């Protein structure tokens, strides 16, 4: 009953999305606003329907109803309650439903806003947003039904028999009532039972889905021939929020990999990791590039291209993660939705290209770059570098696909490739990041620019020389640190410059001046704080990548091993039963630094006996200078309880996480609404309405 109700809600939502497209299209064609309004209402109603469906699914999980296949596959009687709730996105069908939930929510929020001056683009926004929703609801309703009963029949036959068999079996399955209901479920994938992993998919989805809204507005503005600046102002906070969520999702994924997966690192350039990185890269470029359109009416072609590419990368990323296009450690869910995602992706490519071509007159710039040494030029270079990194990463990620198609051999493009190529490109970006705030609109005097750079240049060189004296000899590290220090000084100087100007003119104290400076110009200084966060992260990444030490050794009980300034003694091992089907093997080790006892650690392996899935959980001792990170690789119960350990010394790695926190703080500052700003905007809006004379719907 509950399952049928949930399915019905989803089916109605799907039909509502189709209606929304039809109504809005009809309304805009016949210039009848009541049809467009009707379409808008349809998009608003999709959200409560999907919320209902999700609520019902969670209810089924909490009730341990194993007649529903999804409930059986992601939970068990022993699963704790909070994990039963998060199991909503623990498997393929639930994950796609969860994606729909966020998509419906964001779309409803975007459609529910006051349209005012932007009323002309609303019909097109409804249409494009609804097309996206139609597709993803289609996936849920017809291909990955979370309310499907256990024992559902899979349609047989290849193309074209599947065209008949597919729908027939689908309808059969809707009325299926299983005779045998399993007494217990499979249980949640052990990887998903840890806190970091619980929040990581929602964050990424918020980011992915978040980027569809700017895409909708940009395309709608383009089609409605209103591509100037309005849509940028509307979507600025959406873009920032989506970008933040995606970034946080990436950072959480890295942190989780470090804390739980136990291979000593946090980023492996895995195809699925790259899938979420790619839209973030183009999203960052987009975020910067729209500033130029706002200030100088330029880069329109760049901006529409960047947001289209971001949206397409989001869909492609979903295709990769959910459809298993390039198999990776994440691809625990391969199913038939891959082909449909590919079809949708292709459709949206053609859709976008068509409209960009049709409305190419909208993309002409009214200004141009007058000098290489200008702010416009800096942003152009910014776009260039981000696009290059995207191209390289895209190419490396998807290269195995055509290779496998044409040569039959699967190729791996692993970490070394990306580290080499992207490392150089990111280094260039870091330099640009430091210099760009100094550039002026139109033209910067090169002599002046040179003079401004001289101080930080000298300071960075001095710092690096000091590092060299203190033993840092790796030339890549020295170069990296030089770049970080150089850009850091330049960025901090922006705060110093602004605050001291305020102190001089208004007599404020340093602290008040700084606070007021940031508060009055949240976008700019929030952005600079983000840059500082990035530089701190870069420092941590350079240190830990180039100076990581590791060793693996088999120790008898009571023996020790030395690495760096540390030594570790293995004191004992024990095996315990945990919750549900868990078996935990934990080793006790004592850690010493320079001969002094620091603390004991407990690296362990967890074996989920039902699915026979092992996990190695590292034990870490963290300080700002380094992490002592130890994994229990193996142990022998027969001999003298000998155990094999793998130890990593990760220098400065906690600067990566600290930098991430600064990064997040900066984004919040940049996104925070400024009441003074709002008043100015409202007044400007009122003035323009008076001038236009109320004919807002041209």
């Amino acid at each position, binding site marked *: 009953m509950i399952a049928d109700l949930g399915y019905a809600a989803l089916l109605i939502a799907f039909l509502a999305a189709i209606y929304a497209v039809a109504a809005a299209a009809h309304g805009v064609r016949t210039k009848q606003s009541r049809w467009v309004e009707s379409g808008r209402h349809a998009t608003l109603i999709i959200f409560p329907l999907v919320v209902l469906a999700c609520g019902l699914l969670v209810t089924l999980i909490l009730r341990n109803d194993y007649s529903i296949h999804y409930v059986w596959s992601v939970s068990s009687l022993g699963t704790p309650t909070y994990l039963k709730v998060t199991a909503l996105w623990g498997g393929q069908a639930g994950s796609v439903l969860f994606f729909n939930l966020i998509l419906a929510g964001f779309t409803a929020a975007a459609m529910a806003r006051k349209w005012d001056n932007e009323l002309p683009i609303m019909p097109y926004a409804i249409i494009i947003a609804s097309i996206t929703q139609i597709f993803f609801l289609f996936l849920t309703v017809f291909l990955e039904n979370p309310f499907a009963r256990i024992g559902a029949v899979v349609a047989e036959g290849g193309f074209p028999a599947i065209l008949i068999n597919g729908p027939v079996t689908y309808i059969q399955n809707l009325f299926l009532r299983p005779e045998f209901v399993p007494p217990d479920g499979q249980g949640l994938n052990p990887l998903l039972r840890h806190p970091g992993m619980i929040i990581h998919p929602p964050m990424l989805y918020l980011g992915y889905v978040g980027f569809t809204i700017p895409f909708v507005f940009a395309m709608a503005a383009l089609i409605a021939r209103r591509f100037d600046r309005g849509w940028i102002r509307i979507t600025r906070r959406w873009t920032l929020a989506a970008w933040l969520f995606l970034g946080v999702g990436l950072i959480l994924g890295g942190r989780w990999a470090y804390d739980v997966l136990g*291979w000593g690192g946090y980023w492996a350039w895995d195809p699925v990791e790259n899938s979420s990185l790619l839209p973030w890269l183009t999203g960052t470029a987009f975020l910067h590039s729209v500033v130029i359109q706002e200030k100088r009416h330029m880069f329109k072609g760049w901006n529409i291209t960047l947001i289209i590419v971001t949206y397409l990368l989001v869909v492609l990323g979903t295709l990769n993660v959910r459809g298993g296009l390039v198999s*990776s450690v994440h691809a625990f869910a391969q199913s038939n939705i891959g082909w449909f995602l590919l079809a949708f992706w292709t459709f949206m490519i053609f859709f976008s290209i068509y409209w960009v071509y049709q409305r190419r007159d909208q993309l002409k710039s009214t200004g141009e770059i007058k*000098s*290489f040494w200008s702010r416009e030029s800096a942003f152009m270079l910014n776009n260039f570098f981000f696009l290059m990194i995207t191209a390289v990463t895209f190419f490396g990620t998807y*290269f195995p696909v055509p290779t496998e198609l044409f040569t039959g051999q699967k190729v791996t*493009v692993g970490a070394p*490739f990306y580290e080499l190529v992207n490392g150089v490109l990111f280094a260039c970006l870091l330099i640009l990041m430091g210099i760009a705030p100094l550039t002026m609109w139109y033209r910067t005097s090169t002599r002046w620019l040179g003079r401004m750079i001289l101080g930080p240049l000298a300071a960075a060189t001095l710092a690096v020389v000091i590092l060299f004296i203190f033993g840092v000899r790796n030339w890549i590290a020295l170069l990296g640190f030089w770049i970080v220090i150089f850009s850091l000084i330049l960025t901090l100087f922006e705060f110093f410059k602004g605050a001291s100007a305020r102190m001089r003119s208004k007599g404020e104290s340093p602290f008040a001046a700084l606070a007021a400076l940031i508060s009055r110009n949240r976008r700019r200084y929030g952005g600079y704080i983000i840059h500082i966060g990035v530089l701190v992260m870069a420092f941590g990444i350079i240190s830990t990548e180039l100076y990581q030490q*590791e060793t693996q050794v088999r120790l008898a009980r009571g023996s020790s091993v030395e690495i760096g300034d540390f030594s570790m003694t293995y004191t004992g091992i024990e095996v315990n039963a945990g919750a549900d089907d868990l078996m935990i093997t934990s080793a006790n080790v004592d850690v010493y630094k320079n001969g002094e006892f620091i603390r004991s650690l407990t690296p362990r392996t967890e074996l989920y006996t039902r699915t026979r899935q092992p996990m190695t959980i590292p034990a870490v001792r963290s300080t700002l200078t380094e992490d002592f990170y130890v994994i229990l690789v193996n142990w022998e119960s027969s001999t003298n309880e000998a155990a094999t350990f793998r130890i990593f010394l990760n220098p400065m790695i906690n600067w990566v996480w600290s930098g991430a926190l600064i990064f997040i703080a900066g984004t919040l500052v940049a996104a925070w609404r400024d009441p003074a700003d709002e008043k100015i905007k409202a007044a400007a809006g009122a003035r323009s309405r008076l001038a236009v004379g109320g004919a807002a719907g041209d």
Partner: protein
Amino acid sequence: MASLRAQWNTNHSRILFRLGFLFGALLCLAILVLPAFAQAGSGQVTDDEVNAIAKGLYCPICESTPLDVCATQACADWRQVIRTKLGEGQTEAEIKAYFLDQYGPRALAEPPRSGVTLTVWLLPILALIVGGIILLRYFRNSRTTKAEESVAVAPIESPVPAKEVPEDGDYRSRIESELRDMKR
């Protein structure tokens, strides 16, 4: 003369003594160190050596998992293969070639720099060069447009010899420096 010879003898013996001491110390050091070499040579391959090579390989059957990280029994067996080969004295290149031969290019962390996979390495470089050329041409064009503009601005017909149109850049930088001075 005799004293010189005596001096030389003393110096000579001093030097000899020191040399001898040095040699003896080195010999002791060598004796201490030698067992380590002997141990490595006799097949006692350390886990670190195995991991160093496994890092450059990917598990042939798992999805995108480096061989030193992969926790499955199959991977443990493959690491044992590496260990055996290292014990036999094979080099890293030989071991990698073995894996390439047995399991294909998917076993390597980096695509081999030959054949079809050479494109993985060439294309980024190509993209950078092409992108850079496009960028340069864009900037050159904008500068030509600016030059054309300043020529168009200058009077074409004039009985008086046309004054040189002041360079935009100098003008702006002068304004900037004056503004800066005002700030101070």
